[in-house]
């Protein structure tokens, strides 16, 4: 009976390696210079690439980070350092609620909030949608790592006469910074793979989208569109793009965990 449980674990891990291996082989085969530098070819023709999707994803994620990280970080500081019992528990409850909202409902929300009002699909709307998705996790991870800072550091700062905000900025946050950064990286990796919110906020684009007010192509959405299409060339490109996305997500994830691990071992040496 007990060995059956081992089989269960092995099965779960085998799935992971299988996904990785499949994309590595199938997707890696079709990676080419064209893929990174060309725009999508007209429907049915071969030789196109996903340059605009890669750049578009980058733009949207940049905006998402600029929106989600500061709000989540500062709100986390509030929960960890200030805050009274009732309001804090309300915020934690609401954060969990926001975290549990399906990503497509978030897309509907930003559609009604921004796209309907500006009458445009835009990279701005897409960035806002992903930014709002980043807030709950940024908040939770910041609060967790700030709470983990030992009391002795806080008391030391206070004993030296530092004002509260100064002790937070110069002592407490730097002590927790490795954890906070790794939390943000994990957050970014998660949001980078989200497709549903972008479906009706940034829509998609066959060409370059200058500025922030145009519909913008993004990598996950291109993967979806191409995978569902009937052309073998599109399927090959979808697999290649899938490989790129998965590789990025894994690299960021593994780096983030190393940062946390090395941060923890540094702290234990204090």
């Amino acid at each position, binding site marked *: 009976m007990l060995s059956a449980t081992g089989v*269960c*674990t092995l099965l779960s891990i085998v799935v*992971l390696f299988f996904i990785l291996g499949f994309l590595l082989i199938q997707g890696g085969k079709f990676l080419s210079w064209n893929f990174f530098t060309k725009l999508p070819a007209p429907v049915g023709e071969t030789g196109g690439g996903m340059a605009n999707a890669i750049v578009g994803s980058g733009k949207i994620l940049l905006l998402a980070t600029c929106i989600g990280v500061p709000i989540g970080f500062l709100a986390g500081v509030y929960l960890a350092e200030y805050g009274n019992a009732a309001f804090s528990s309300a915020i934690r409850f609401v954060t969990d609620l*926001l975290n549990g909202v*399906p990503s497509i409902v978030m897309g509907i929300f930003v559609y*009604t909030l921004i796209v309907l009002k500006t009458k445009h699909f835009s990279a701005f709307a897409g960035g806002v949608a992903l930014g709002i998705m980043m807030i709950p996790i940024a908040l939770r991870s910041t609060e967790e790592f700030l709470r983990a800072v030992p009391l002795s550091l806080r008391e030391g700062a206070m004993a030296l*006469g530092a004002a509260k905000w100064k002790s937070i900025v110069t002592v407490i946050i730097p002590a927790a910074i490795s954890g906070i950064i790794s939390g943000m990286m994990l957050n970014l990796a998660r949001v980078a*793979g989200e497709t549903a919110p972008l479906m009706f906020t940034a829509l998609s684009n066959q060409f370059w989208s200058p500025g922030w007010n145009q519909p913008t192509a993004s990598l*996950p959405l291109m993967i979806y569109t191409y995978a569902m299409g009937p052309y073998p060339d599109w399927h090959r490109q979808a697999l290649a793009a899938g490989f790129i996305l998965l590789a990025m997500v894994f690299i960021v994830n593994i780096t983030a965990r190393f940062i946390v691990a090395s941060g923890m071992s540094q702290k234990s040496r204090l």
Partner: protein
Amino acid sequence: MGVPIVVGPDARPAGRASGFVGLLSRILNVDRLAHGLVFCCAACVILLTVLLAYELWANSALSRMQFGWRFLFSSTWDPIAGKFGALPFIYGTVITTFLGLLLAIPLGIGAAVFLAELARPRISDLMTFLIELLAAVPSVIIGLVGRFVLIPILEKIVPTLKSVLGLLPIFSGPFYGVSIFSAGIVLAFMILPFIISISREVLLAVPRDLREAALALGATRWESTWQVVIPFARTGIIGSIFLAMARALGETMAVTMVIGNSPKIMASLLAPGYSIASVIANEFTEATGDLYLSALIELGLVLFCLTIVINGAARLLIMMTTAKGAK
């Protein structure tokens, strides 16, 4: 008697900071500003959630006025005639989630038991790390692999399945590859990592004395795990199942790519179906007319309420278990 206190040349009266920052600190009360700023950000979160609920409510008003509660029980989805009913999608969502849970729960709890009870700590940590990597795989990638790998495999396996079980209504009818069955399998792999990691944490929180007491009374390893540890952690494991359920209900991309997009309620698992998230994803940008859009937004509202309820129940259950373990 004491050590003489020497006041150096650059000693200042305590409390007077110098420079620009010091000037700023004395003109504005920076502490109050900082407090205000972080408070605003925290309040932002509450504001956004309230705004989300309001926008969903307000924008689905047209459809709610038109159909009322019948929306949830009618199975006609006819955009041309302007008749909308959510039943096929609710059915599809519930069946795929149920199927996914059916497959993921035994696998997940089994793996969690292995990682918490049997594996050596370092192997357990390494395997947990790999399983958390599986959780990080974007849903569109799992859909991709589902479409290009799972469906061809199923197309080979299902004829054999049908020859054995084809008399049952749930396995009747033609199989086109895209089906509720495929969607259920894909969902199972998406929620498996959540069940494993939360159940593992809950099992690790069970106090050692319970296990050791069972073993001291002569129970085998399996008996102590199955009859003592798991029942103690039962509430938390159920909480993890609820969380996985909430995740599965809202799962869009992976399901849309393998479910077949057919708004009909069929008894067979091998038939194509439709889930709430999939219909929104597929039809939102092509919705003609306000009523159509409003009906889709009302579907979003239904999904929103469903996930709130299940998430809330899940958090409560997990809180109850960790409190029990800490006592």
